[in-house]
């Protein structure tokens, strides 16, 4: 007996992006439950953020007081931020993005280079060097502001574009942390089998070629993660910025926002919350963009194990 096409369709596999998606209870067992748990997890993680959002629309800007939906709704804080009537927010925003992008890019570059040498090259003091890099970063950087301030004010006298109150000077200081994720990168380099290197060597590649053309593409996920982490860290940095960037033209958004609430005892955090939300947006966008690198995974190596 001939079955109808509709019947036939039901038995065809449901395919998307070349992957077969199960249906019915199989879907629930393999995929559906993930959505449920995922939403629950996101709820927990985003719940406090909802308060930040709520305060940014609340003219009284209060985060305490329990109710999530504000009694009255206002766009005044966002408006103040965008039209710059009170403070040059957009300029601060621009400064922040600029510094964050530059520092993150340098950080990824330098730490990857260093990780490559720690992982692939053998030299005296390799183990010790690696450990020292990590240990230096463990030091409570409490008094660093005082030391760096003196250093940068001296630097500013010799190189005027790089001293206090300059974004370049501030970016330089942040580059002190460029070795921050060396361990992270090294770990990933280590997980790539040496056979790949050897194969490239046999083909006549020098160390630069191996680094750039062979290994880098294999570690793109962690490069992207590294970039994102540094980006987030720089966007939120305000302690060093508070003493280095005092002129309105060069402030970053974080420092500007903290400045607004610091002298203000009224407890109205509306503007600060609006600014924080605006700061989150590039992070989310960046992550969305970088995800395609993170999930590219590793192409099956040219090596047969």
């Amino acid at each position: 007996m001939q079955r109808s096409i509709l019947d036939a369709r039901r038995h065809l596999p449901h395919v998307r992006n070349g992957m077969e998606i199960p249906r019915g209870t199989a879907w629930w067992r393999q995929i559906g439950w993930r959505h449920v748990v995922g939403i629950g997890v996101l709820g927990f993680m985003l719940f406090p953020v909802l308060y930040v959002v709520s305060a940014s629309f609340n003219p009284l800007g209060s985060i305490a007081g329990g109710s999530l939906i504000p009694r009255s709704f206002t766009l005044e804080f966002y408006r103040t931020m965008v039209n710059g009537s009170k403070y040059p927010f957009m300029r601060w925003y621009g400064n922040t993005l600029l510094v964050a992008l530059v520092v993150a890019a340098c950080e990824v570059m330098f730490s990857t280079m260093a990780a490559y040498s720690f992982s692939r090259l053998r030299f005296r003091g390799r183990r010790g060097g690696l450990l020292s890099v990590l240990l230096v970063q463990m030091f409570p950087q409490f008094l660093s502001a005082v030391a760096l301030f003196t250093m940068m004010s001296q630097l500013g006298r010799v190189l005027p574009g790089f001293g206090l109150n300059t974004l370049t000077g501030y970016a330089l200081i942040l580059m002190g942390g460029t070795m921050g994720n060396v361990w992270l990168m090294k770990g990933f380099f280590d997980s790539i089998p040496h056979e790949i290197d050897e194969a490239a060597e046999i083909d006549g590649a020098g160390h630069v070629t191996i680094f750039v053309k062979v290994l880098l593409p294999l570690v793109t996920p962690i490069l992207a993660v590294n970039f994102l982490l540094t980006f987030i860290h720089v966007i939120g940095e305000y302690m060093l910025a508070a003493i280095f960037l005092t002129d309105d033209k060069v402030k970053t958004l974080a420092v500007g926002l903290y400045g607004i609430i610091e002298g203000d005892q009224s407890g109205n955090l509306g503007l600060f919350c609006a600014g924080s939300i605006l700061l989150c947006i590039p992070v989310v966008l960046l992550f969305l963009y970088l995800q395609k690198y993170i999930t590219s995974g590793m192409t099956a190596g040219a090596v047969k194990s």
Partner: protein
Amino acid sequence: MTSRRFTYADGPSAEPMLTLGRTTSIPALLTKIIFLGLVLGLAVAIVPALISMRSWTMLAILVITVIAVFTIYTTRHCVPAKYLFPGTFFLVLFLLVPVIYTIQISTTNFGDGTRASKSETVSSIVSASVVRDDSLPTYTMSIGVSRHGDTTDDYVLLLVNSTTGRTYLGTTDRLSLMPTAQVTVKKGRIVAAKGYRILTAEQVNNAGDAITGMSVPVNAGKGVAIHTSGISSAYTGTENLVYDSSADTITDRSTGDVYSPRMVNGRYLFVDPQGRAVSQRSWLSSVGLANYTSLFTDSSIRGQLLTTSLWTLFFAVFSVAGTFLAGLLIALLFDEPRMIGRKVYRSLMVVPYAVPTFIGFLIWSTFFNKDFGLVNQLTGLHLDWFGNASLAKIAVRTANLWAGIPYMFLISTGALQSLPADVVEAARVDGARPIRLFFQIKMPLLLVSVAPLLVSSFAFNFNNYNAIALMTQGGPFSSDGSLFGGTDILISGIYRLAFGGSGARFGLAAAVSVLLFFITALMAIIQFRYTRKLEEIL
């Protein structure tokens, strides 16, 4: 992994035309040239300024750096250095130098009141003792500079007595009458004077200290002099204190008290025989290891030291383990390619990390408010979260978990993607079931990459001042005056010691930082040996 020196493959058959080191392609060559040119140019531009400022240390550093850059990048040797140099350069400059500075400070009494050298302190104490006496003449003032003396700026005060209207010339030596014929007075101020050029506000400013520090002696024996006040007036005042450098004493002219330096509580103060200090200002002096020993002998620390250390350890371990497990599980949750909306889920997971920590912890602290907080409202309990030490600890741990999960999630997501797909595939083909796949194949590979991060996260949380300070400020505090509160970790408690008291004591805080660093470093080294063993097993 074999241990061998990296050997270079021989290049292609054709002899390279242009080389600088091993670089052979033109764009790379150009980049190198520009880079080296920039470095050299920058250095050359700075050198004259450094010489004029006599900063020999900075000059030396600059020269060494330039030599290093050139050696590393123009020869074919030092291959590892080529990769290590940029990151290390910044690390040393901006991370290591402050560390050295901190260690240096820990042997001094640097802090409030002890920031300057002895001579600066003495001169500032003395100059701040000028008392204005309105019974003595006040003047309107113009600043003049001698027209003929252009090499050294000889400033004079051109004064008009506010009451008598007489005009005077004041120099650093003496006050003398200025004949009215030689000056032009308009609206009570001298606007022109023969032989002198009157300075504008801007020029007065540029002269800086030369003018503000200037005083015209009227009665040197009694310390009476005319001092400037702003840019347009002057007053007569008495400098009450006088410093005798040979006897090293400060004497108060009006009372006759003599103050000499004595060590009081770790700092030098000028005190009189009864012990009263003329000023709380002191100067920087070295105290050797006194800061460190005081930490061990201070009774307010000793009582709670053990419990606080245990809590700090527990807090760090719990935070790392908790955030890692949660982050990993969530990463695995979304590690299903067939799930739609993964991108959105993952991007949203990062949002808590982008929110400033200050506001994140603030909101969590309002959640745990006894009467108005969300936790009590949702659960119906009426727990005094911050009033009870154990409950407060739970609150702090929960908030810190929330703050740290996104980071671990990001790392785990990246790590899972970077697992060698062929190994995983091979195991799957071999028939391994998902759970076994996870534990025996994925997890070990994951741990190898991620282990160092766990170690540094542990170190970070061991000294996580922020989390404690923003949530509870270390409370709840018992009423027996002990230093450590219920949720204080070592760093938050001991820093309080450095910043309480009659002024901040950075020297003590520095010593605390160094000590805590040693403790965490030791633990980190131990953990590393352990992970290295792990590495070798795999």
